[in-house]
């Protein structure tokens, strides 16, 4: 009996050790060449799951993508527990510093953030200017029949409803794009609030996720909120036109979002598309990037694996783009595509370019 118990204890200790040990080796978990691990942006998840399932059917490469949020994806890439991350925001200084090595930002598609409102008596599409949007979200405009709104929307009978602002309560790339835009176009916003995936909102209510903000807007007469284009389209919500840098009022759509990216881009694609120079571009838009290490030889990764990864993204920015529009994502513009191709060509394995 005594011996038996000792044996049992010994066995369980061995099992425990083995279990712990396999936990330490998690990096080699991505060593399997036919599986690629990714994590990050929730925004791009519907597109990625479509792309990866099509890609798996044609090539057999399995991609396991977890939509844990851009910040989480960056963290996992930093810890090298995934092969790629996906983010709606470029790495900030602290994140870049923690990575230590070059990380490529490959644009995958772009998305837009639209202003959605609930005014039961209004059927026309409202027009907004950048300063008006900033004034609303700073809490300075209290009523919908305020002179600043009526002056811009001559002919529309605006109700005497209080303006109720809805914003995201969770940290998100949508908030980042929206606040980056406001910081660019409005000096007061930049000094008082600033930009980020979570900010200190001067006014309004917070809802969790696009669905949370959409819920607040749909339920509350007089509410206005910012929501992703794809979500608004799928749920057929009312949204406003916005004046862009060239002075045109642009209706948010997949086409005007793609157009926003059709400008001279920097070679690393690390750029915010907000307040775009494109005359037909919708001004609140941005890329979602796939993030990979520039030098793919780390943690004993095989060359096959690195090649698979780069080829996957090459396919995404070419053949994969045709799946964007059906899911209300904006495909890359021709100038964005050229930049993305060059970025992928710069990925190396042991110093040698992966794509020949």
């Amino acid at each position: 009996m005594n011996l038996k118990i000792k044996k049992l204890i010994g066995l369980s200790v061995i099992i425990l050790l083995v279990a712990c040990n396999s936990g330490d080796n998690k990096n080699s978990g991505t060593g399997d060449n036919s599986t690629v691990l990714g994590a990050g942006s929730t925004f791009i998840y519907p597109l990625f799951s479509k792309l990866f399932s099509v890609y798996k059917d044609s090539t057999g490469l399995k991609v396991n993508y977890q939509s844990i949020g851009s910040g989480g994806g960056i963290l996992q890439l930093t810890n090298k527990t995934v092969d790629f991350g996906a983010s709606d925001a470029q790495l900030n200084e602290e994140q870049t510093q923690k990575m230590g090595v070059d990380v490529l930002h490959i644009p995958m598609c772009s998305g837009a953030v639209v202003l959605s409102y609930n005014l039961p008596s209004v059927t026309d599409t409202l027009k907004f200017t950048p300063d008006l949007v900033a004034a609303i979200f700073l809490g300075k405009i209290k009523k919908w029949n305020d002179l600043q709104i009526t002056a811009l929307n001559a002919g529309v009978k605006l109700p005497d409803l209080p303006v109720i602002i809805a914003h995201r309560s969770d940290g998100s790339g949508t908030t980042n794009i929206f606040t980056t835009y406001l910081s660019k176009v409005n000096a007061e916003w930049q000094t008082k609030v600033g930009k980020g995936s979570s900010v200190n909102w001067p006014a309004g209510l917070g809802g969790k996720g696009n669905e949370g903000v959409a819920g607040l807007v749909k339920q509350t007469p007089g509410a206005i909120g910012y929501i992703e284009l794809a979500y608004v389209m799928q749920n057929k919500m009312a949204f406003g036109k916005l004046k862009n840098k060239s002075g045109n009022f642009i209706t948010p759509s997949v086409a005007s979002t793609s157009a926003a990216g059709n400008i001279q881009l920097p070679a690393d694609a690390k750029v915010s598309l907000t307040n775009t120079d494109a005359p037909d571009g919708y001004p609140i838009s941005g890329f979602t990037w796939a993030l990979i290490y520039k030098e793919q030889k780390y943690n004993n990764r095989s060359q096959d694996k690195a090649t698979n990864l780069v080829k996957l993204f090459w396919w995404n920015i070419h053949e994969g783009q045709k799946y964007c529009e059906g899911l209300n994502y904006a495909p890359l513009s021709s100038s964005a595509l050229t930049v993305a191709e060059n970025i992928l060509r710069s990925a190396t394995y042991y110093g040698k370019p992966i794509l020949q």
Partner: protein
Amino acid sequence: MAFAMGKCINKGVKKITYSYRKVRFENIFRRSLMLTALAVLIIVIGIFFTLVVQSMPSIKTLGIKYIWSKTWDPVSDMYGAFPFLLGTLLTSFLALIISIPFSFAIAVYLGEYNTTGWLGGLLKNMVELIAAVPSVIYGFWALVTLVPIVRNFETKIGVAPYGVGIFTSSIVLAIMIVPYAASLGRELIRLVPSSLKEGAYSLGATRYEVVKNVILPHTKSGLMAGILLSLGRALGETMAVTMVIGNTSIIPTSIFSPGNTMASVIANEFTEADRTVYLSALIELALVLFLVTVVINMIGKRIIKRFTYD
């Protein structure tokens, strides 16, 4: 088993080994019980230390003023827990005040008036079911049904008609915490010795007088414990609250204002906290919530003790 025992009695040597085994088993059994109980202690202490260690960057940068500073601004890396501390305490205590009359009434009705029979049984099961429903369902129900009702009410009394806010979250929380005090109260009221009650009746007391003068005084420490359980639940509730509280870090000016709680901020912002101090400030928020719960529990224990010994 009986067969084996009979064998042991027949053979003296085996009997000794058998009782030796029994003693060993007793020891092992006792030790495993102790280890299991100790594991709880280790886990709680472990959580506390993890929270302290992970909050260090934030404690070092922001210092003690973190507790009472009023701005939560991730952009300029300034963090203050005060609005959320206030929001947590406001929603929890308001919920408690709303829920107490209901939970006591349910406890007295099911413990004294309707102890058996199908209606009593059905009500008892329903009360327990309230505790078993996942909180996201309460949140969803509140968002769809309760928020428009509260908004109409707010329009009538002339405050900003948000619909969401501290008042709405308190109502949802109140519903969620009713079963904790009610179930415990019901059990305790049923345990009141019938000799005491019969004594009161024989002195000419009415049923209401028995409840007021015999049952409630006899069970008050237990009822307090039930309230404490409810409060603990209310302090930590995340999902249902975050769906209807309005999630703003502006300090609430009335119970109809939107606000935010510590648990809700953590759940909302943790995934995208992209800087060390930011992440650490969120973990410090968890530490504060942990300490608040501990302190409230300790105060509650004192109160229960006082009720028991006077």
